[in-house]
């Protein structure tokens, strides 16, 4: 292991590592033969489906999912706030569930489907939650917003699925309320304190979905 360690170190110091890690799009229709680890380089092949697009990366195992998205796939909508699981700016949806992309390694998600803010909607075709955040002014500086929106979309799904929260009075009767939304959104900090407007946006979308 020590020699391997050294090789990887020196490799990482060179720009070669960056070139090697550039995203490679799967050729259309090509059977996705899974590449194996390149001997001695310490780089690991990782295949992800990000916003519906299949991507193949060669990554240092230290690469977090957040850094893979931002630095390797250049999807910079997902933000890095604390890099410690304490702010929620990096929230993305993996296999249908919201997680902090800063506290997980990309290699652990080989084969997974990832949705980022760029995949929820586009400026021409906004996701209802994106539209509601605009309507209700659910942000000021906007730094926390991609994480807030990914979280908000997942929160409504969690309530619909009957997953209880800390403030659910009866664990078997999960329903929508402001206090439920606030509790469930507590993993997303907003330094600009746009909280009331975020709750308004979520209520708006929840009402729309119900109707």
């Amino acid at each position: 292991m020590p020699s391997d360690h050294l090789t990887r170190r020196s490799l990482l110091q060179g720009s070669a590592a960056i070139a090697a890690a550039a995203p490679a799009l799967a050729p259309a229709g090509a059977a996705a033969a899974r590449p194996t680890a390149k001997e001695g380089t310490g780089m690991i092949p990782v295949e992800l489906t990000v916003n519906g697009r299949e991507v193949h990366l060669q990554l240092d195992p230290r690469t977090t999912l957040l850094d893979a998205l931002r630095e390797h796939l250049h999807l910079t909508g997902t933000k890095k706030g604390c890099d410690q699981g304490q702010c929620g700016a990096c929230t993305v949806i993996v296999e249908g569930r919201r997680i902090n992309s800063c506290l997980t390694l990309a290699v652990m998600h080989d084969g997974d489907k990832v949705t980022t803010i760029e995949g929820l909607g586009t400026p021409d075709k906004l996701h209802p939650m994106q539209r509601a955040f605009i309507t209700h002014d659910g942000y000021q500086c906007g730094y926390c917003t991609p994480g807030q929106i990914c979280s908000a979309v997942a929160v409504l799904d969690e309530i619909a699925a009957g997953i209880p929260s800390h403030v659910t009075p009866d664990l078997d009767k999960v329903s929508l309320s402001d206090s439920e939304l606030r509790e469930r959104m507590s993993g997303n900090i907003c330094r600009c304190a746009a909280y009331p407007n975020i709750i308004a946006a979520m209520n708006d979308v929840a009402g729309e979905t119900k109707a």
Partner: protein
Amino acid sequence: MKSFTYSRATSVADAAKTAASTQGARFIAGGTNLLDLMKLQIETPTHLIDVNHLGLDRIEPTPEGGLRIGALVRNTDLAADKVVRRDYGVLSRALLAGASGQLRNKATTAGNLLQRARCPYFYDTNMPCNKRKPGSGCGAIGGISRSLAILGVSDACIAQHPSDMAVAMRLLDAQVDTVGADGVARAIPIVDFHMLPGDTPHVETALKSGEIITSVTLPKPIGGTHVYRKVRDRASYAFALVSVAAVFGKDGGSRFALGGIGAKPWRTPAADAAASSGAKAVAEAALNGARTTHHNDFKKTLVERTLASLYRHKEARS
């Protein structure tokens, strides 16, 4: 982060064997604690064994009428499980009081039990800490100790065990099922799982080198009214200053476990025995032997008041 190699375990036996035979190897489950500590170089594994794909993510009834919870069951799924909600409500409540929705979607049963201290000096690598660097001293003793433990502490370490889930597991007399490097399975009662700091605060659990947790087993349900109350500096997404898990039995028999105040999840037979005498008596029994600092002496009062609020809650419900 220091560099490391990575592999996905193919079987429980393979994971345990690789862990024991590879120097510097660690398991990774949700990664929410380990990666945080690796970024700060408090943990510096040279090899990570990913245990996420071993099928250890099921919740099944046991022949004894209890419940076997796979080591990799996510905190969200455990809290939302129908049987857990119905028969072990205190466990659902404790889980839901911890961390955030995003973190609970990743955090696992085993990882939660094994999460490390939240002592500010443990996290600050410029400071002495016997847990992080054995023999270097303890920055918290004589330092800022408001959040730290008052029970089970030693002259070497006063860190509190930070888990909410573990408090409920202790209350319910869970057992931790493992497989060792030799492939042999064993069951560790939760009371023996976490170690008191003594002179060796870096030794935190009864696990041996390479030993992997496969599941956590609950005995058959005990009925009663289940409650978990957590007191913290903000209403959500913060660790406990004090937490109390309780089951109030119909026959008057009740049990209590405390979080945020002990070097490990705290439960004493004397406190359970004092149940019929009320909150003050339970608090006195539970806090027997407490060693406080100027900063965290308030936790004694807070334990008593939290217990009192649980008693009121129980009376309102019955």
